[in-house]
């Protein structure tokens, strides 16, 4: 069974966001493997450990994001491909086009993606990629099993779980609820140095990254405006009620 997992490097959501001159500050210590992708890597590893097969990871990003690819290899993925680009403004359309070009001549059973990336939370790349590759597709999986060469995918609903059969080749996007991704151990870190990583460019895939079509543009980053402090009312309950009603009507325009 051959898995491809698409991964992305994102800013650590637990570290406070720092914005300077309209640019997001992205220092090395604050960049991590997207948590949803980590779950996709983990689930692919568990399935191939049980049923045999290989896990290959592929990432679109700048050269300095390589360490994130290495983390997936340290977790246990067999090899990786780095599609190098320095363009910081790629959107889901562009990512999915680059990845579709990469997968065009590849053999695989399943492609796994995180259901979204923690940087933009757009959650589009997986579905756009499935569309372009014309693959059967299940989104937002919370559990995967492998039976009779098919993936049995569990999706979470409000009242229960939906169980879907996904034939090979197919694409599934993973929720981070499905597992607790393993932490690379020292052996894994050591081995990850020796695992093969292909470095290619979008041009190698026939894509001119300079003129790649984006469907959206990032204009800039702004700090969250500080929330105004709430109003505190003291005194006679009847008067307070009257005052609150007046404010809701006249200032908030809600009544």
């Amino acid at each position, binding site marked *: 069974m051959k898995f491809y997992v698409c991964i992305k490097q994102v800013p650590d959501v637990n570290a406070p966001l720092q914005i300077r001159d309209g640019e997001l500050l992205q220092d*090395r*210590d604050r960049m991590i493997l997207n948590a949803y992708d980590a779950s996709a890597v983990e689930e692919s590893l568990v399935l191939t450990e049980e049923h045999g097969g290989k896990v290959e990871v592929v990432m679109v990003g700048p050269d300095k994001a390589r*360490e994130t690819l*290495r*983390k997936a290899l*340290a977790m246990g993925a067999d090899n990786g491909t780095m599609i190098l680009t320095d363009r910081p403004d790629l959107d889901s359309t562009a990512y999915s086009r680059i990845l579709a070009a990469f997968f065009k001549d590849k053999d695989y059973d399943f492609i796994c993606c995180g259901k979204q990336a923690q940087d933009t939370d757009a959650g589009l790349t997986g579905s756009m990629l499935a569309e372009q590759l014309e693959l059967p597709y299940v989104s937002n999986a919370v559990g995967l099993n492998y039976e009779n060469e098919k993936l049995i995918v569990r999706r979470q609903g409000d009242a229960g779980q939906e169980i879907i059969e996904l034939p090979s080749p197919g694409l599934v996007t993973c929720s981070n609820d499905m597992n*607790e991704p393993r*932490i*690379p*151990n*020292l*052996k894994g*870190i*050591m081995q*990850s*140095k020796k695992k093969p990583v292909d470095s290619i460019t979008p041009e190698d895939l026939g894509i001119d990254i300079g003129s790649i079509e984006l469907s959206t543009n990032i204009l800039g980053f702004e700090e969250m405006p500080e929330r105004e402090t709430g109003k505190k009312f003291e005194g006679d309950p009847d008067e307070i009620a009257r005052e609150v009603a007046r404010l809701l009507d006249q200032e908030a325009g809600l009544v």
Partner: protein
Amino acid sequence: MINFELTEDQQMIRDSAREFVKRHVAPDVISRDSKKEFPRNLVQKLAEQGLMGIYHEEAYGGGGFDTVSFCLVIEEIARWDASLALTVASHTSLGAGHIALAGTHEQKEKYLAPLTSGEKLAGWCLTEPGSGSDASGLKTTAVRKEDKWILNGTKIFITQGSVGDIYVVLAKTDPDKGTKGITGYIVEKNWKGVNPGEPIHKLGMNSSDTTEIVFENVEVPLENQLGEQGKGFIDTMKVLDGGRIGIGALSVGIARGAFEESMKYSQERQQFGRPVGNFQAVEHKLVQMATEIDAARILVHRAALLKDRNSPYTKEASMAKLFASELAVKAADEAVQIHGGYGYTKEYHVERFLRDAKLMTIGEGTSEIQKMIIARELRKEFGY
């Protein structure tokens, strides 16, 4: 030599250790401290991560990483649980460290490999009721009797004393020769006459195991002599040099914990209408901590780098240990102060940091002993 950026390997190891500690170590640390229980399950998990022999040779199951990586891991563990960091540091650099330094190939295969894999734990037996840093005064004896050494004596304050499986024991073989009459031995706990005592109650480091061990007519096979006869003291000094780097890293971890908890608390705690962390009195404490933590870490990593390059590092290791351990106590003290009444309670982490930190200025040579070592090295440098 001057490069303040971690290598990719070092960064990966630190990040993995940080993730591990956050997931497995941080959650129950307050309860482990109050129950004074040795966390075997956590040590097992650390072993699965490969963290029980980080810098030992891969040929003997070690990680084959450098001493800076080891320091990074110890700092990450100590950030939350100094007791556990002490277990890892003493196991790796004292017990296993002595075998790695002076052991034969056979000894390393038999004893070092199960230590680096974490299958077994090491205890290092130097200190005695009557002798600490003055190792020449130790009273434990090893007497040759036919094809055995007979070991007799009492060791105290042995980390992993009762949970350990393999001990390195320093004993006098030639009582007239002073420090030149000391030899090391590898002793297994389950041998006849090896009697670990009950855990000693301590001020801090509560979930690290410390006991006395009485050796009573213990028969040690000749092949378990560790290093040359009479060279035990020289090896001991080298082992301690390495150990002090670990204590330095552990101290940096405690100080960082004290600082980070204080930073968080002082921004959340409001008094007189603003966060207490915005009063200059508190600000200055935080700034002092942050600055000195960076300085301590640089001293520790410098010593680690020198060790990895096989350059002399006795002075640098002592400087790092002295500065970092004094800082750990100071930072933990300030952290309790910044937390006020809450800091004095066991609901918060900082009172534990203060109790744990105090061992740092004592274990593996007190601050006063570090100053003796540094002064001696300085005199050598100046030709006196």
